[in-house]
Protein backbone atom coordinates (compact mmCIF):
# COMPACT_ATOMS: atom_id res chain seq x y z
CA UNK A 1 0.00 0.00 0.00
CA UNK A 2 2.74 2.37 1.02
CA UNK A 3 4.73 1.40 -2.09
CA UNK A 4 1.85 2.27 -4.38
CA UNK A 5 1.38 5.58 -2.62
CA UNK A 6 5.06 6.38 -3.10
CA UNK A 7 4.93 5.52 -6.79
CA UNK A 8 1.95 7.75 -7.28
CA UNK A 9 3.61 10.59 -5.43
CA UNK A 10 6.78 10.27 -7.48
CA UNK A 11 4.82 10.24 -10.71
CA UNK A 12 2.84 13.30 -9.68
CA UNK A 13 5.97 15.13 -8.66
CA UNK A 14 7.59 14.55 -12.05
CA UNK A 15 4.40 15.69 -13.74
CA UNK A 16 4.57 18.90 -11.75
CA UNK A 17 8.17 19.38 -12.85
CA UNK A 18 7.15 18.86 -16.48
CA UNK A 19 4.22 21.25 -16.10
CA UNK A 20 6.55 23.82 -14.56
CA UNK A 21 8.86 23.55 -17.55
CA UNK A 22 6.02 23.79 -20.05
CA UNK A 23 4.59 26.88 -18.34
CA UNK A 24 7.85 28.67 -17.90
CA UNK A 25 9.74 27.97 -21.11
CA UNK A 26 9.37 29.64 -24.46
CA UNK A 27 10.71 27.10 -26.96
CA UNK A 28 10.47 29.33 -30.07
CA UNK A 29 12.59 31.98 -28.37
CA UNK A 30 15.07 29.36 -27.24
CA UNK A 31 15.22 27.97 -30.76
CA UNK A 32 16.06 31.40 -32.13
CA UNK A 33 18.72 31.73 -29.48
CA UNK A 34 20.16 28.36 -30.42
CA UNK A 35 20.29 29.13 -34.13
CA UNK A 36 21.96 32.49 -33.54
CA UNK A 37 24.41 30.83 -31.21
CA UNK A 38 25.23 28.24 -33.83
CA UNK A 39 26.45 31.01 -36.10
CA UNK A 40 28.22 32.45 -33.09
CA UNK A 41 30.10 29.24 -32.54
CA UNK A 42 30.89 28.99 -36.23
CA UNK A 43 32.93 32.20 -36.15
CA UNK A 44 36.57 31.50 -35.34
CA UNK A 45 37.25 34.75 -33.50
CA UNK A 46 34.30 34.24 -31.22
CA UNK A 47 35.26 30.63 -30.68
CA UNK A 48 38.63 31.87 -29.50
CA UNK A 49 36.92 34.29 -27.16
CA UNK A 50 34.86 31.44 -25.81
CA UNK A 51 38.00 29.38 -25.30
CA UNK A 52 39.51 32.31 -23.45
CA UNK A 53 36.48 32.45 -21.22
CA UNK A 54 36.88 28.75 -20.50
CA UNK A 55 40.52 29.30 -19.62
CA UNK A 56 39.50 32.07 -17.25
CA UNK A 57 36.97 29.76 -15.65
CA UNK A 58 39.72 27.19 -15.25
CA UNK A 59 41.89 29.82 -13.61
CA UNK A 60 39.08 30.59 -11.20
CA UNK A 61 38.79 26.92 -10.34
CA UNK A 62 42.51 26.76 -9.74
CA UNK A 63 42.27 29.80 -7.48
CA UNK A 64 39.51 28.06 -5.58
CA UNK A 65 41.71 25.02 -5.21
CA UNK A 66 44.51 27.18 -3.86
CA UNK A 67 42.14 28.69 -1.35
CA UNK A 68 41.17 25.21 -0.29
CA UNK A 69 44.79 24.26 0.14
CA UNK A 70 45.37 27.39 2.22
CA UNK A 71 42.38 26.48 4.27
CA UNK A 72 43.93 23.05 4.84
CA UNK A 73 47.14 24.65 6.07
CA UNK A 74 45.18 26.89 8.40
CA UNK A 75 43.42 23.82 9.75
CA UNK A 76 46.87 22.38 10.44
CA UNK A 77 47.80 25.48 12.39
CA UNK A 78 44.60 25.22 14.39
CA UNK A 79 45.50 21.64 15.16
CA UNK A 80 48.86 22.84 16.39
CA UNK A 81 47.09 25.39 18.55
CA UNK A 82 44.98 22.65 20.04
CA UNK A 83 48.04 20.80 21.32
CA UNK A 84 48.47 20.69 25.05
CA UNK A 85 51.08 22.93 26.63
CA UNK A 86 53.20 19.90 27.39
CA UNK A 87 53.28 18.85 23.73
CA UNK A 88 54.11 22.40 22.70
CA UNK A 89 56.97 22.46 25.17
CA UNK A 90 58.33 19.28 23.66
CA UNK A 91 58.13 20.76 20.16
CA UNK A 92 59.92 23.90 21.34
CA UNK A 93 62.68 21.86 22.99
CA UNK A 94 63.12 19.84 19.80
CA UNK A 95 63.39 22.97 17.65
CA UNK A 96 65.88 24.53 20.08
CA UNK A 97 68.00 21.40 20.03
CA UNK A 98 68.07 21.26 16.24
CA UNK A 99 69.04 24.94 16.11
CA UNK A 100 71.98 24.34 18.46
CA UNK A 101 73.11 21.43 16.34
CA UNK A 102 73.00 23.58 13.20
CA UNK A 103 75.16 26.28 14.80
CA UNK A 104 77.69 23.68 15.79
CA UNK A 105 77.88 22.49 12.19
CA UNK A 106 78.53 26.06 11.02
CA UNK A 107 81.41 26.49 13.40
CA UNK A 108 82.97 23.30 12.10
CA UNK A 109 83.25 24.34 8.49
CA UNK A 110 79.84 25.20 7.05
CA UNK A 111 79.43 28.76 5.83
CA UNK A 112 76.53 30.60 7.40
CA UNK A 113 73.98 31.96 5.00
CA UNK A 114 74.35 35.58 6.15
CA UNK A 115 78.07 35.47 5.38
CA UNK A 116 77.28 34.91 1.74
CA UNK A 117 75.11 37.97 1.38
CA UNK A 118 77.50 40.69 0.24
CA UNK A 119 79.48 38.50 -2.05
CA UNK A 120 76.44 37.28 -3.89
CA UNK A 121 75.27 40.85 -4.50
CA UNK A 122 78.65 41.63 -5.95
CA UNK A 123 78.29 38.72 -8.31
CA UNK A 124 75.01 40.04 -9.54
CA UNK A 125 76.52 43.44 -10.23
CA UNK A 126 78.97 41.93 -12.64
CA UNK A 127 76.17 40.12 -14.47
CA UNK A 128 77.11 36.74 -15.73
CA UNK A 129 75.85 37.05 -19.27
CA UNK A 130 76.82 33.57 -20.23
CA UNK A 131 73.84 32.25 -18.32
CA UNK A 132 71.45 35.07 -19.10
CA UNK A 133 70.75 35.43 -15.40
CA UNK A 134 71.01 39.18 -15.61
CA UNK A 135 67.66 39.38 -17.32
CA UNK A 136 65.87 38.30 -14.19
CA UNK A 137 67.57 40.73 -11.84
CA UNK A 138 65.31 43.51 -10.67
CA UNK A 139 67.56 46.56 -10.83
CA UNK A 140 66.53 50.07 -9.96
CA UNK A 141 68.41 51.88 -12.70
CA UNK A 142 67.34 55.29 -11.38
CA UNK A 143 69.44 54.94 -8.26
CA UNK A 144 72.56 57.05 -8.89
CA UNK A 145 74.38 55.40 -6.00
CA UNK A 146 74.17 52.01 -7.55
CA UNK A 147 77.52 51.89 -9.25
CA UNK A 148 77.44 48.23 -9.88
CA UNK A 149 74.86 48.64 -12.63
CA UNK A 150 75.35 50.48 -15.86
CA UNK A 151 72.25 52.29 -17.05
CA UNK A 152 73.63 53.66 -20.26
CA UNK A 153 73.94 52.10 -23.63
CA UNK A 154 77.56 51.25 -24.42
CA UNK A 155 79.42 53.67 -26.62
CA UNK A 156 79.78 51.29 -29.55
CA UNK A 157 76.03 50.86 -29.65
CA UNK A 158 75.49 54.60 -29.71
CA UNK A 159 77.88 55.04 -32.57
CA UNK A 160 76.15 52.37 -34.61
CA UNK A 161 72.86 54.16 -34.05
CA UNK A 162 74.26 57.38 -35.34
CA UNK A 163 75.54 55.63 -38.39
CA UNK A 164 72.18 54.27 -39.37
CA UNK A 165 69.61 56.84 -38.29
CA UNK A 166 69.91 58.95 -41.41
CA UNK A 167 69.40 56.83 -44.46
CA UNK A 168 70.61 57.78 -47.86
CA UNK A 169 68.28 56.96 -50.66
CA UNK A 170 71.06 56.32 -53.11
CA UNK A 171 73.07 53.88 -51.05
CA UNK A 172 74.51 51.03 -53.01
CA UNK A 173 73.96 47.41 -52.12
CA UNK A 174 77.49 46.92 -50.89
CA UNK A 175 77.44 49.88 -48.54
CA UNK A 176 74.16 48.72 -47.09
CA UNK A 177 75.69 45.42 -46.23
CA UNK A 178 78.37 47.27 -44.37
CA UNK A 179 75.79 49.14 -42.38
CA UNK A 180 74.11 45.94 -41.47
CA UNK A 181 77.34 44.70 -40.06
CA UNK A 182 77.74 47.85 -38.05
CA UNK A 183 74.39 47.49 -36.39
CA UNK A 184 75.41 44.26 -34.79
CA UNK A 185 75.03 44.95 -31.10
CA UNK A 186 77.79 44.73 -28.55
CA UNK A 187 77.96 41.92 -26.08
CA UNK A 188 79.52 43.65 -23.13
CA UNK A 189 78.36 42.67 -19.70
CA UNK A 190 77.12 46.14 -18.84
CA UNK A 191 74.61 46.01 -21.71
CA UNK A 192 73.09 42.96 -20.22
CA UNK A 193 71.74 44.86 -17.25
CA UNK A 194 70.54 47.93 -19.12
CA UNK A 195 66.80 48.33 -19.32
CA UNK A 196 65.00 51.17 -21.02
CA UNK A 197 61.26 51.18 -21.31
CA UNK A 198 60.50 52.55 -24.77
CA UNK A 199 59.64 49.76 -27.14
CA UNK A 200 58.28 51.05 -30.41
CA UNK A 201 59.48 53.30 -33.17
CA UNK A 202 58.13 54.02 -36.59
CA UNK A 203 60.16 55.07 -39.60
CA UNK A 204 58.69 56.28 -42.83
CA UNK A 205 60.53 55.35 -45.98
CA UNK A 206 59.94 56.30 -49.55
CA UNK A 207 61.17 54.90 -52.78
CA UNK A 208 61.94 56.80 -55.97
CA UNK A 209 58.77 57.37 -57.89
CA UNK A 210 60.00 56.32 -61.28
CA UNK A 211 58.30 53.32 -62.77
CA UNK A 212 61.51 51.87 -64.10
CA UNK A 213 63.38 49.05 -62.52
CA UNK A 214 65.25 50.09 -59.46
CA UNK A 215 68.69 48.77 -58.96
CA UNK A 216 69.72 50.76 -55.95
CA UNK A 217 69.25 49.55 -52.44
CA UNK A 218 68.30 51.67 -49.51
CA UNK A 219 68.90 50.98 -45.90
CA UNK A 220 66.75 52.66 -43.30
CA UNK A 221 67.24 52.01 -39.65
CA UNK A 222 64.40 51.83 -37.21
CA UNK A 223 65.95 53.55 -34.27
CA UNK A 224 64.62 52.66 -30.90
CA UNK A 225 65.67 53.78 -27.49
CA UNK A 226 65.41 50.26 -26.27
CA UNK A 227 68.36 48.27 -25.22
CA UNK A 228 67.21 45.40 -23.13
CA UNK A 229 69.06 42.61 -21.40
CA UNK A 230 70.68 40.29 -23.81
CA UNK A 231 71.47 36.67 -23.55
CA UNK A 232 72.52 35.98 -27.09
CA UNK A 233 75.75 34.49 -25.90
CA UNK A 234 73.99 31.38 -24.78
CA UNK A 235 72.09 31.08 -28.01
CA UNK A 236 68.70 32.38 -27.01
CA UNK A 237 66.39 32.79 -29.97
CA UNK A 238 64.76 36.18 -30.07
CA UNK A 239 61.26 36.84 -31.13
CA UNK A 240 60.58 40.35 -32.29
CA UNK A 241 57.52 41.46 -34.13
CA UNK A 242 58.03 43.96 -36.88
CA UNK A 243 54.96 45.35 -38.56
CA UNK A 244 55.51 46.77 -42.01
CA UNK A 245 52.82 48.65 -43.84
CA UNK A 246 52.92 49.57 -47.49
CA UNK A 247 50.95 52.53 -48.75
CA UNK A 248 50.80 54.54 -51.93
CA UNK A 249 51.85 58.14 -52.10
CA UNK A 250 48.17 58.99 -51.55
CA UNK A 251 48.07 56.94 -48.40
CA UNK A 252 46.15 53.97 -49.76
CA UNK A 253 47.21 50.56 -48.48
CA UNK A 254 48.77 48.16 -50.95
CA UNK A 255 48.01 44.49 -50.57
CA UNK A 256 50.14 41.64 -51.81
CA UNK A 257 53.52 43.28 -51.44
CA UNK A 258 56.17 40.67 -50.85
CA UNK A 259 58.47 41.07 -47.88
CA UNK A 260 61.35 38.75 -47.28
CA UNK A 261 63.23 38.11 -44.07
CA UNK A 262 66.85 38.00 -45.10
CA UNK A 263 67.92 35.91 -42.16
CA UNK A 264 65.32 33.20 -42.41
CA UNK A 265 64.36 33.46 -46.08
CA UNK A 266 60.69 33.44 -45.12
CA UNK A 267 58.47 35.55 -47.32
CA UNK A 268 55.44 37.47 -46.14
CA UNK A 269 52.76 39.34 -48.00
CA UNK A 270 50.88 42.46 -46.98
CA UNK A 271 47.22 42.07 -46.19
CA UNK A 272 44.28 44.20 -47.30
CA UNK A 273 45.31 46.91 -44.89
CA UNK A 274 48.72 46.85 -46.54
CA UNK A 275 50.31 45.46 -43.40
CA UNK A 276 52.44 42.44 -42.69
CA UNK A 277 53.60 41.23 -39.30
CA UNK A 278 57.06 39.94 -39.86
CA UNK A 279 58.47 37.89 -37.07
CA UNK A 280 62.22 37.96 -36.98
CA UNK A 281 65.00 37.04 -34.68
CA UNK A 282 67.75 39.13 -33.23
CA UNK A 283 68.92 42.14 -35.20
CA UNK A 284 68.74 40.56 -38.59
CA UNK A 285 67.87 42.82 -41.46
CA UNK A 286 64.71 42.55 -43.46
CA UNK A 287 64.57 42.87 -47.21
CA UNK A 288 61.40 44.28 -48.65
CA UNK A 289 60.81 43.79 -52.34
CA UNK A 290 58.05 45.89 -53.76
CA UNK A 291 57.09 47.95 -56.78
CA UNK A 292 58.51 51.45 -56.85
CA UNK A 293 56.54 54.44 -55.77
CA UNK A 294 55.22 53.18 -52.48
CA UNK A 295 55.89 54.35 -48.99
CA UNK A 296 56.75 52.03 -46.19
CA UNK A 297 56.07 52.33 -42.52
CA UNK A 298 57.87 49.87 -40.37
CA UNK A 299 57.47 49.56 -36.66
CA UNK A 300 59.13 47.31 -34.22
CA UNK A 301 57.33 46.02 -31.17
CA UNK A 302 59.44 44.49 -28.48
CA UNK A 303 56.58 44.02 -26.12
CA UNK A 304 55.87 40.57 -27.47
CA UNK A 305 59.36 39.35 -26.88
CA UNK A 306 60.61 37.86 -23.70
CA UNK A 307 64.05 39.13 -24.55
CA UNK A 308 64.63 41.69 -27.21
CA UNK A 309 67.21 42.63 -29.73
CA UNK A 310 70.32 43.65 -27.93
CA UNK A 311 71.21 46.44 -30.31
CA UNK A 312 69.42 49.78 -30.26
CA UNK A 313 68.71 49.82 -33.97
CA UNK A 314 66.89 47.59 -36.32
CA UNK A 315 67.63 47.87 -39.98
CA UNK A 316 65.12 47.36 -42.73
CA UNK A 317 66.29 47.06 -46.31
CA UNK A 318 63.99 47.54 -49.19
CA UNK A 319 64.38 47.44 -52.89
CA UNK A 320 62.34 47.97 -55.96
CA UNK A 321 61.48 45.35 -58.52
CA UNK A 322 64.46 43.68 -60.04
CA UNK A 323 66.78 44.60 -57.24
CA UNK A 324 68.93 42.20 -55.39
CA UNK A 325 68.11 41.16 -51.91
CA UNK A 326 71.10 41.88 -49.70
Amino acid at each position, binding site marked *: MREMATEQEVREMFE*RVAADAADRLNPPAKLGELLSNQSFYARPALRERLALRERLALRERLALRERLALRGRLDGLKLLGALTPVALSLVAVFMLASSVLTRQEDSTGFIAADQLGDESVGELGSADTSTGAGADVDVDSTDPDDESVSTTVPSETTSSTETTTEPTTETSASSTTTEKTETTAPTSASTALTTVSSTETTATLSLPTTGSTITSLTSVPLTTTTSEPSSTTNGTVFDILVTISVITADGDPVAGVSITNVASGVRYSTNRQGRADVGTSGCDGLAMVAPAGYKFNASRDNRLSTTSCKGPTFTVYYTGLGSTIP
Partner: protein
Amino acid sequence: MRVERRKVHVDSTFADFYLGHFSRLVALATAVAGDATFAEDIVQDAMGKAHDRWPELDGYDNPVAWVRRAVINKSIDRKRRILREAKALARLGPGQPRASFQPRSDDELWSAVQALPARQRAAIALFYMEGYQTNEIAEVLGCAEATARTLLHRARATLRLELDTDHRGAQL
Protein backbone atom coordinates in the same frame (compact mmCIF):
# COMPACT_ATOMS: atom_id res chain seq x y z
CA MET B 1 21.38 25.18 -55.47
CA ARG B 2 20.81 21.67 -54.21
CA VAL B 3 22.74 22.47 -51.05
CA GLU B 4 20.47 25.44 -50.35
CA ARG B 5 17.32 23.32 -50.61
CA ARG B 6 18.84 20.77 -48.27
CA LYS B 7 19.69 23.47 -45.73
CA VAL B 8 16.15 24.80 -45.69
CA HIS B 9 14.82 21.29 -45.27
CA VAL B 10 17.19 20.61 -42.39
CA ASP B 11 16.31 23.80 -40.58
CA SER B 12 12.56 23.32 -40.86
CA THR B 13 12.57 19.73 -39.66
CA PHE B 14 14.99 20.57 -36.90
CA ALA B 15 12.74 23.42 -35.79
CA ASP B 16 9.80 21.06 -35.55
CA PHE B 17 11.91 18.61 -33.63
CA TYR B 18 13.16 21.30 -31.28
CA LEU B 19 9.76 22.80 -30.56
CA GLY B 20 8.26 19.38 -30.01
CA HIS B 21 10.74 18.12 -27.45
CA PHE B 22 12.48 21.04 -25.80
CA SER B 23 10.22 21.51 -22.76
CA ARG B 24 10.00 17.82 -22.01
CA LEU B 25 13.76 17.43 -22.20
CA VAL B 26 14.25 20.41 -19.87
CA ALA B 27 11.90 18.76 -17.38
CA LEU B 28 13.90 15.55 -17.60
CA ALA B 29 17.19 17.39 -17.14
CA THR B 30 15.69 19.28 -14.19
CA ALA B 31 14.76 16.02 -12.53
CA VAL B 32 18.25 14.60 -12.98
CA ALA B 33 20.41 17.71 -12.52
CA GLY B 34 18.19 19.16 -9.80
CA ASP B 35 18.35 22.69 -11.13
CA ALA B 36 16.05 24.08 -13.79
CA THR B 37 18.45 26.81 -14.90
CA PHE B 38 21.23 24.38 -15.50
CA ALA B 39 18.72 22.06 -17.16
CA GLU B 40 17.97 24.66 -19.82
CA ASP B 41 21.66 25.07 -20.58
CA ILE B 42 22.14 21.33 -20.75
CA VAL B 43 19.28 20.82 -23.18
CA GLN B 44 20.31 23.79 -25.28
CA ASP B 45 23.81 22.41 -25.50
CA ALA B 46 22.56 18.98 -26.50
CA MET B 47 20.22 20.51 -29.05
CA GLY B 48 23.12 22.50 -30.46
CA LYS B 49 25.03 19.32 -31.03
CA ALA B 50 21.95 17.75 -32.55
CA HIS B 51 21.66 20.70 -34.90
CA ASP B 52 25.26 20.22 -36.00
CA ARG B 53 24.59 16.56 -36.73
CA TRP B 54 21.04 16.97 -37.90
CA PRO B 55 21.51 15.56 -41.43
CA GLU B 56 22.66 12.35 -39.77
CA LEU B 57 20.17 12.35 -36.89
CA ASP B 58 17.27 13.08 -39.19
CA GLY B 59 17.75 9.67 -40.69
CA TYR B 60 17.36 7.94 -37.33
CA ASP B 61 14.11 6.26 -36.39
CA ASN B 62 14.03 8.09 -33.09
CA PRO B 63 16.36 11.09 -33.06
CA VAL B 64 15.07 12.27 -29.70
CA ALA B 65 16.57 9.17 -28.09
CA TRP B 66 20.01 10.42 -29.10
CA VAL B 67 19.35 13.84 -27.61
CA ARG B 68 17.78 12.36 -24.49
CA ARG B 69 20.85 10.26 -23.89
CA ALA B 70 23.08 13.30 -24.29
CA VAL B 71 20.88 15.24 -21.88
CA ILE B 72 20.97 12.48 -19.26
CA ASN B 73 24.75 12.16 -19.46
CA LYS B 74 25.27 15.89 -19.22
CA SER B 75 22.79 16.17 -16.35
CA ILE B 76 24.58 13.47 -14.38
CA ASP B 77 27.92 15.17 -14.98
CA ARG B 78 26.52 18.55 -14.04
CA LYS B 79 24.92 17.23 -10.86
CA ARG B 80 28.22 15.73 -9.76
CA ARG B 81 29.96 18.99 -10.46
CA ILE B 82 27.38 20.94 -8.49
CA LEU B 83 27.85 18.62 -5.53
CA ARG B 84 31.63 18.95 -5.71
CA GLU B 85 31.38 22.73 -5.86
CA ALA B 86 28.90 22.77 -2.98
CA LYS B 87 31.25 20.72 -0.84
CA ALA B 88 34.17 22.97 -1.72
CA LEU B 89 32.19 26.11 -0.96
CA ALA B 90 30.94 24.62 2.29
CA ARG B 91 34.54 24.05 3.33
CA LEU B 92 35.35 27.66 2.52
CA GLY B 93 32.58 28.90 4.74
CA PRO B 94 29.27 30.68 4.15
CA GLY B 95 29.00 32.65 0.93
CA GLN B 96 26.38 34.19 -1.30
CA PRO B 97 23.70 31.69 -2.29
CA ARG B 98 23.53 31.07 -6.03
CA ALA B 99 20.35 32.45 -7.50
CA SER B 100 18.60 29.97 -9.74
CA PHE B 101 15.14 28.80 -10.54
CA GLN B 102 13.96 25.75 -8.63
CA PRO B 103 10.85 23.74 -9.31
CA ARG B 104 7.87 24.26 -7.09
CA SER B 105 8.19 20.67 -5.92
CA ASP B 106 9.94 21.68 -2.77
CA ASP B 107 8.59 18.88 -0.65
CA GLU B 108 10.45 16.04 0.97
CA LEU B 109 9.96 13.83 -2.04
CA TRP B 110 11.87 16.22 -4.31
CA SER B 111 14.67 16.38 -1.78
CA ALA B 112 14.70 12.61 -1.48
CA VAL B 113 14.92 12.20 -5.26
CA GLN B 114 17.75 14.71 -5.44
CA ALA B 115 19.60 12.86 -2.70
CA LEU B 116 19.67 9.67 -4.77
CA PRO B 117 22.86 8.70 -6.59
CA ALA B 118 23.01 10.21 -10.07
CA ARG B 119 22.31 7.08 -12.09
CA GLN B 120 19.47 6.00 -9.80
CA ARG B 121 17.96 9.45 -10.18
CA ALA B 122 18.29 9.24 -13.95
CA ALA B 123 16.70 5.79 -13.97
CA ILE B 124 13.76 6.87 -11.88
CA ALA B 125 13.24 10.03 -13.94
CA LEU B 126 13.24 8.07 -17.18
CA PHE B 127 10.86 5.52 -15.70
CA TYR B 128 8.30 7.88 -14.23
CA MET B 129 8.66 10.90 -16.43
CA GLU B 130 9.26 9.33 -19.82
CA GLY B 131 7.53 6.00 -19.19
CA TYR B 132 10.61 4.05 -20.22
CA GLN B 133 10.93 0.33 -19.65
CA THR B 134 14.05 -1.12 -18.09
CA ASN B 135 15.55 -2.13 -21.44
CA GLU B 136 15.15 1.45 -22.71
CA ILE B 137 16.62 2.86 -19.51
CA ALA B 138 19.57 0.51 -19.92
CA GLU B 139 20.08 1.76 -23.45
CA VAL B 140 20.10 5.40 -22.40
CA LEU B 141 22.40 4.82 -19.43
CA GLY B 142 24.66 2.52 -21.39
CA CYS B 143 24.36 -0.42 -19.02
CA ALA B 144 22.87 -3.90 -18.91
CA GLU B 145 19.13 -4.26 -18.42
CA ALA B 146 19.71 -6.05 -15.14
CA THR B 147 21.74 -3.10 -13.94
CA ALA B 148 18.97 -0.71 -14.91
CA ARG B 149 16.48 -2.87 -13.03
CA THR B 150 18.72 -2.81 -9.98
CA LEU B 151 19.12 0.97 -10.17
CA LEU B 152 15.38 1.39 -10.36
CA HIS B 153 14.74 -1.03 -7.51
CA ARG B 154 17.26 0.62 -5.21
CA ALA B 155 15.98 4.08 -6.01
CA ARG B 156 12.43 3.12 -5.21
CA ALA B 157 13.48 1.33 -2.04
CA THR B 158 15.41 4.39 -0.89
CA LEU B 159 12.51 6.69 -1.59
CA ARG B 160 10.12 4.40 0.22
CA LEU B 161 12.41 4.30 3.21
CA GLU B 162 12.82 8.05 3.22
CA LEU B 163 9.13 8.68 3.05
CA ASP B 164 8.36 6.08 5.70
CA THR B 165 10.71 7.78 8.11
CA ASP B 166 9.15 11.14 7.40
CA HIS B 167 6.39 12.48 9.54
CA ARG B 168 4.14 12.07 6.52
CA GLY B 169 4.88 8.40 6.56
CA ALA B 170 3.81 8.22 10.16
CA GLN B 171 0.43 9.61 9.24
CA LEU B 172 -0.26 6.87 6.71
